[in-house]
């Protein structure tokens, strides 16, 4: 059992697990992205290419990452990291209590320098030089011992602790995260009952929003040269428990209601259309939410009798090569091109400008006005603070680990001729060649100090 335990949570296993995670995710990332919400596409894929459908459904990174087999890997990393932290802290405490050679690190480089001073004065001079190089020193007769860069070890521990905290945060997110979307049209306040939250299978998660009313107005989309987006903003009004008032909301500037974050996510046009049938009765009327961005994209609304009205909207109409186009995204001169389809056959088509009406395929279409619709991602993630704290620990830990390099030094002085000889031993846990290079530089500083002159930096 101890052997199994040691093997399972060894650093070698941790590396293997990290490599396995990387390879699995890299392969999963190669799976083409299909919009699985579009069941028509998925059904076609299942019918024509069953293997491709299986891969698209089950081997995408988000699916793979949720599979129990994959989740076992970070769980193993978590336990392995925890054991490693405990072992390393205990080892460090033991090492610091130790005396003599045991206090030195693994890779040691020794340089001997000569001094005209007596051993006592030479060791004093060496102590001054080492202190200015930020070593914490202790003296025992003609021997100096010291270390620096202890923050590097603390950084390494902080980094690994950060990984633990991050993994805890990710687990909390996975278990408690609520995510959905709410769509609102200008001028039509929306009651945020759980059933109004789109793109979620867990409507009950949003019960706290029940009783809240969300309204939007004055959506603006700013464009450079008419086509390059530079700003999206909308005035949002919230009424309900604990929230009241209006605010301007932009991309990257979410707002919170009842602990839920609302993030401006998408927008589109919502024309006021009235469709009248051949009998003079209204076939469809009201504000129609169209997903017609960019211009020319088509959306459809159903009509009685299985017919449908297919609509394309051009916000600033202009004719391009004989076809309708748009100068830009700002609705300066909005124009709708439509066609009527029955049993997938086109029975008529026409165009209509804002404020106008047109007849085709046995229906009359009136385009009475144009509004915007906007959608917000509604989310609540209790794991986020853990993730943020874990990330901060990881970043700070790695920075400390890199900036502070743990080293231990020992200097022994002995009588040599009329003066003394100082044996400088610099040690480090890693990088023997860099340690040798540093030891040479440190020895020259000590030599200069022991000669009474100024050397370089250590």
């Amino acid at each position, binding site marked *: 059992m101890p052997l199994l335990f040691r093997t399972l949570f060894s*650093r*070698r296993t*941790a*590396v293997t697990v*990290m*490599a396995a*995670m*990387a390879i699995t*995710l*890299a392969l*999963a*990332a*190669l799976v*083409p*992205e299909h919009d699985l919400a579009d069941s028509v596409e998925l059904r076609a894929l299942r019918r024509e290419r069953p293997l491709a459908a299986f891969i698209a459904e089950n081997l*995408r*990174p*988000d699916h793979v*990452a949720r599979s129990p087999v994959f989740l076992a890997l970070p769980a193993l990393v978590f336990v392995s990291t925890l054991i490693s932290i405990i072992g390393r802290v205990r080892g460090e405490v033991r090492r610091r209590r130790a005396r003599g050679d045991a206090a030195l690190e693994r890779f040691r480089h020794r340089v001997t320098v000569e001094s005209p001073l007596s051993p006592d004065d030479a060791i004093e001079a060496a102590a001054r030089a080492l202190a200015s190089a930020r070593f914490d020193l202790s003296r025992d007769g003609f021997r100096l011992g010291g270390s620096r860069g202890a923050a590097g070890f603390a950084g390494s521990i902080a980094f690994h602790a950060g990984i633990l905290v991050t993994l805890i945060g*990710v687990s909390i*997110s996975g278990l408690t*995260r609520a*995510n959905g979307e709410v769509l609102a049209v200008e001028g039509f306040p929306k009651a945020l009952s759980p059933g109004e939250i789109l793109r979620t299978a867990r409507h009950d998660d949003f019960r706290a929003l029940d009783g809240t009313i969300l309204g939007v107005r004055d959506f603006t989309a700013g464009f*450079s040269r008419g086509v*390059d*987006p*530079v*700003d*999206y903003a909308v005035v949002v009004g919230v009424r309900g428990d604990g929230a009241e008032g209006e605010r301007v909301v*932009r*991309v*990257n500037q*979410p707002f919170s209601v009842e602990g839920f*974050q609302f*993030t*401006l*996510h*998408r*927008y589109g046009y919502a024309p006021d259309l009235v469709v009248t049938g051949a009998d003079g009765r209204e076939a469809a009327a009201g504000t129609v939410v169209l997903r017609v961005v960019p211009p020319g994209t088509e959306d459809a609304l159903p009509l009685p009798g299985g017919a449908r009205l297919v609509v394309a909207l051009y916000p600033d109409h202009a004719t391009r090569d004989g076809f309708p186009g748009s100068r830009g995204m700002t609705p300066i001169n909005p124009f709708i091109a439509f066609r009527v389809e029955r049993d997938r056959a086109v029975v008529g088509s026409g165009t209509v400008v804002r404020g106008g009406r047109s007849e085709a395929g046995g229906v009359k279409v009136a385009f009475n006005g144009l509004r915007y619709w906007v959608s917000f*991602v*509604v*989310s609540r*993630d209790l794991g*986020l603070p853990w*993730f*943020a704290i874990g*990330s*901060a620990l*990881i*970043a700070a830990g*790695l*920075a400390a*680990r*890199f900036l502070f390099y743990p080293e231990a030094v020992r200097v022994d002085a002995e009588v040599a001729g009329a003066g003394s000889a100082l044996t400088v031993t610099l040690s480090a846990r*890693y*990088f*023997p*060649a*860099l340690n040798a*290079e540093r030891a040479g530089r440190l020895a020259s500083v000590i030599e200069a100090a022991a000669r009474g002159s100024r050397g370089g930096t250590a």
Partner: protein
Amino acid sequence: MTGLDSAAVWAAIAGYGLGLAASLAGSIFRLPRFSTTGIALGLTGVACHAAAVVVRWTVSGHAPVMGPYENALLGSFFLPPLFIALAWRYPAVRGAAPLVMAATLLILGNGVMAHQAHAPLEPPYRSNWLVVHVLFAWLAFGSYLVSSALAAHYLWTTRAGAPAPDPDRRPLVDELAARLIAFGFAADSIMIASGAIWAHGLWGRYWAWDPVETWSLVSWLVYGANLHLRFTLGWSGRRAAWLALASVLAVIISFFGIGVIASVHTEVL
């Protein structure tokens, strides 16, 4: 592209090109003076490159992060200064100069051939996290690429039958490559963390397994495993150098391959 930033970019390309030629001649003909000249010319390229970044930033009014040209301009910027700082302190690594200059020229040249018109900063980019995220992304990229150049240089100088003017210097190159990987890993971690927190404010989630996020995690895991192999399992020398070269593939895919094999961040606004 304005006349000024065009001139600065072409001056940088000239500096790197001449630096490449001089350092290559220094390596082939074993002329240390040429190698030193190559580094000095590279430094001139860095100065011009920095001027190009500043001009582009000033004229466009935002950090150069929009489109392939600006990404190449900023993405290639950190390679030569990181390497030159290292070469100034540790002359043993100077033999890797041709590789670093060539990589810089390749990235910058690829950018210059792309569409260079100024584009406004799109709404999702209008965030205080932008500079942190992008800066650390390119720092990580530069560190990883320079470390792989050092690894390639190490492999070349330790190949069977290679002349050995100063074998004591070889382990230093290997260890400096490891230090650069550690530095890159720290920058990579900050890049991922800042990107995740930014994504939560922008899209309402900090992680969604889109291709960019997935590949960022893949490269982070690859380099995490790389550092573990070096520091806890004692990998060094040629084995570690081969590992560094293999690891950089994940980074190249993360930064340049995603647009080819999959879409980028898959959100709307």
